[in-house]
């Protein structure tokens, strides 16, 4: 056989799972990100006493497709003096960084592109932080003063909160003892509990920092519509803007995946080792079947016939998925499929919950001003994260050298970090009170017209 062809076949045979995973990520994630946008719009509408997109497709389900088509056929506008190469490249970098970082994430025990890379978690964090270039180069390439300022501000915010996020992740890493993604989840299984119960403060710090990482409300001043400087995305229209937008939502998925892997047990079910909780294994199938049943129930109440058929279709899909999830449990020869399928289900459920939290916060909270945002990051989150790392180190020493129970040691960590948090917040309140009691100095005599003359 031709040696090149042989080499290629050997390559495909060893690496086909990874290749398929990679293709799935690149092909599916943008589509999924588009549908996350739809979910956000529907959720926002629900929380705001309205319906959201309803026209395009039954219940607005084809809305992302319509949006994608619209953005693709839009006129491609490039500002006059913009640097064409960088202008083209910036959104691509943003999206590519997000997608590449997904390569190291294990979406289930069987689905990972960069199989067991030694520095798995660092890879995800490091490569996803390359998205910063997408922002800063995009702002610069627009050749507009306000875009550059918005881009620099956004970058400063990202860099500040990256530090806090990384420090918060160290707690989970110390508990797991390794950087490999799979090994972290295996450590949680081995210990029998998700790390969020051992290190809740670290999880909380990571949640806040990751909201700022992805430029989501309440930290979305650099890209808010009602602010003066409309941010780095101003000059981007059509599909370039869509790439930025999809990159942002892909980043949300990445950040959710990291939190799930490290704190929420990855693909483990709740109480992974407790034998009498094994009935939880039935939950995925039951949950999906329950969703299907609800669709059947609502199908009868739809006003329009196409919506009724559509609900029946969704119910059918739910039942099929429930069947796929249930059959390996019941049919013995297929038991090897259980960890993969159920693992993927739990993982996706947890990421969805995390992203739901992001959206919920977006609709509820007002926006931080930029200086307040930076103050929160540098004065409160980073010191808290540093103290947390020290405290977790202390807990590890107590556990390893002095034989303390891990729960007790981590409880000590939580207490120390909470005390520091209260202290920092009290300090912050005092500083704010002092700043407000000292009124802003009077600038000029009040009768002067700054534009006279």
């Amino acid at each position, binding site marked *: 056989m031709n040696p090149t062809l042989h080499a290629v076949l050997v390559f495909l045979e060893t690496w086909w799972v990874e290749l398929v995973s990679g293709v799935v990520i690149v092909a599916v994630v943008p589509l999924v990100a588009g549908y996350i946008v739809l979910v956000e719009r529907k959720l926002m509408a629900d929380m705001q006493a309205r319906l959201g997109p309803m026209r395009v497709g039954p219940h607005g389900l084809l809305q992302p497709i319509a949006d994608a088509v619209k953005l693709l056929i839009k006129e491609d506008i490039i500002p006059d003096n913009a640097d064409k190469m960088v202008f083209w490249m910036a959104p691509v970098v943003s999206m590519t960084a997000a997608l590449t970082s997904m390569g190291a994430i294990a979406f289930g025990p069987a689905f990972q592109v960069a199989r067991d890379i030694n520095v798995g978690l660092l890879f995800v964090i490091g490569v996803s932080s390359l998205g910063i270039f997408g922002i800063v180069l995009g702002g610069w390439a627009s050749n507009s003063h306000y875009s550059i300022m918005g881009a620099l501000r956004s970058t400063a915010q990202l860099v500040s909160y990256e530090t806090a996020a990384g420090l918060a992740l160290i707690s989970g890493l110390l508990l797991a003892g390794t950087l490999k993604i799979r090994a972290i989840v295996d450590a949680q299984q081995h210990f029998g509990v998700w790390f969020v119960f051992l290190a809740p403060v670290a999880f909380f710090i990571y949640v806040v920092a990751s909201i700022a990482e992805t430029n989501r409300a309440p930290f979305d*001043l650099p890209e808010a519509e009602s602010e003066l400087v409309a941010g780095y995305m101003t000059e981007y229209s059509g599909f370039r803007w869509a790439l930025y937008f999809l990159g942002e939502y892909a980043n949300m998925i990445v950040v959710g995946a990291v939190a799930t892997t490290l704190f929420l047990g990855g693909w483990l079910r709740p109480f992974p080792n407790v034998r009498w909780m094994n009935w939880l294994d039935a939950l995925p199938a039951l949950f999906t079947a329950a969703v299907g049943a609800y669709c059947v129930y609502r199908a009868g109440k739809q006003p329009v016939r196409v919506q009724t058929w559509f609900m029946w279709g969704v119910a059918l899909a739910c039942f099929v998925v429930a069947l796929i999830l249930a059959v390996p449990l019941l049919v013995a020869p297929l038991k090897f499929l259980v960890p993969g399928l159920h693992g993927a289900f739990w993982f996706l459920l947890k990421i969805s919950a995390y992203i739901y939290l992001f959206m919920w916060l977006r609709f509820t909270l007002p926006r931080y001003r930029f200086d307040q945002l930076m103050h929160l990051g540098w004065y409160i989150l980073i010191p808290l994260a540093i103290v947390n790392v020290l405290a977790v180190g202390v807990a590890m020493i107590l556990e390893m050298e002095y034989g303390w129970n891990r729960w007790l040691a981590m409880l000590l960590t939580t207490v120390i970090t909470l005390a520091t948090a209260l202290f920092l917040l009290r300090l912050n309140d005092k500083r704010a009170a002092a700043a407000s009691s000292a009124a802003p100095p009077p600038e000029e005599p*009040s009768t002067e017209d*700054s534009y*006279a*003359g």
Partner: protein
Amino acid sequence: MQDDAAQNQTLLGADELVLNMGPQHPSTHGVLRVKLKLDGERVRGTECVIGYLHRGVEKIAENRSYQQFAPYVDRMDYVAAVSNGLGYCEAVEKLLNVEAPPRAKVIRTIMTELQRIASHLVWLGTHALDIGALTPLFYCLREREEILKIFEKYCGARLTTHAFRIGGLQYEAYDSFEKDVERFCKDFERRIQEYVDLLTGNSIWIGRTRNVGVLSAEDCIALGASGPVLRASGVKWDLRKAQPYAAYDQYNFQIPVGTNGDTYDRYMVRMEEMRQSRLICLQAIENIPAGPILGKVGKVLKPPAGEIYHSIEAPKGILGYYIVSDGTTQPYRVRIRPPSFINLQALDKMARGHLVADVVAIIGTLDIVLGEVDR
């Protein structure tokens, strides 16, 4: 003059730049152009360029009869049309020396207080939206929808209502008027609590509004600011208590007053005003006197020559009408004292020293409507 020029020379230093918040901007609540003089991030001075919505309303008044001019008045502060109508009708009634019958006065009071709630709801929703809270807007509009339904049932229009006539009312209160208002008011307390839950204790909201746009009481009085802007700075001046008109002297209500004169206080004052308006409505519908709704006013209005100034407490501030009559059917001059226009003068004082991101909050807290500013 020389000194001013020299001082301006040093003002335009190396780091200053003039930023234009153009007439088209999501947060200027209409076509308002604000030129910001910035030093880095800090605002050193502002200049408002208005007139984009000027329609020559006061000039038009000189060529219309008194009844013909009434619908024009609604279009000034289009968010609170009923108040505008109330002020105008009462001003002309003063000129004619007639009084509206008691039933008309009470129904006018109810409608005006409902309109105050509706105006404050729009303010709350848009102000929260500017600061980044996306949800209160929809809740506020949901409540306002109920009020607009009442208006529609009463006079056929939701926004530019032309609800009142010179001398009283044209339309009798429809059959379920009291029931509708009562149902709305009973429901509204719970809704206000929703807004309070979302915003009042929220540390991000407090951080964005406390000590932002502080206006001292002396400055308020010097600039002629009125309405919630004045009351939030500590001056207890409300025309409904100080110079009662319509049926306000019959009801028990409080005037909320703030302490600091910052954006948070203005927010609290307007929230409390909504509650007090609700109380006025509840008291009023208990006892609407029977009787005629239109006073003794002829079909052709020829007020005697003279002038009159009448002002009311509109949701945005003190709305005044100065009407000069020359004895004919058309007024000689109608001059409107628009509260938004005069409150907008305070923008410069309030915005100095703040960051650019605060300017949006400050414009929102002044609660201006460009229809009124430009007329």
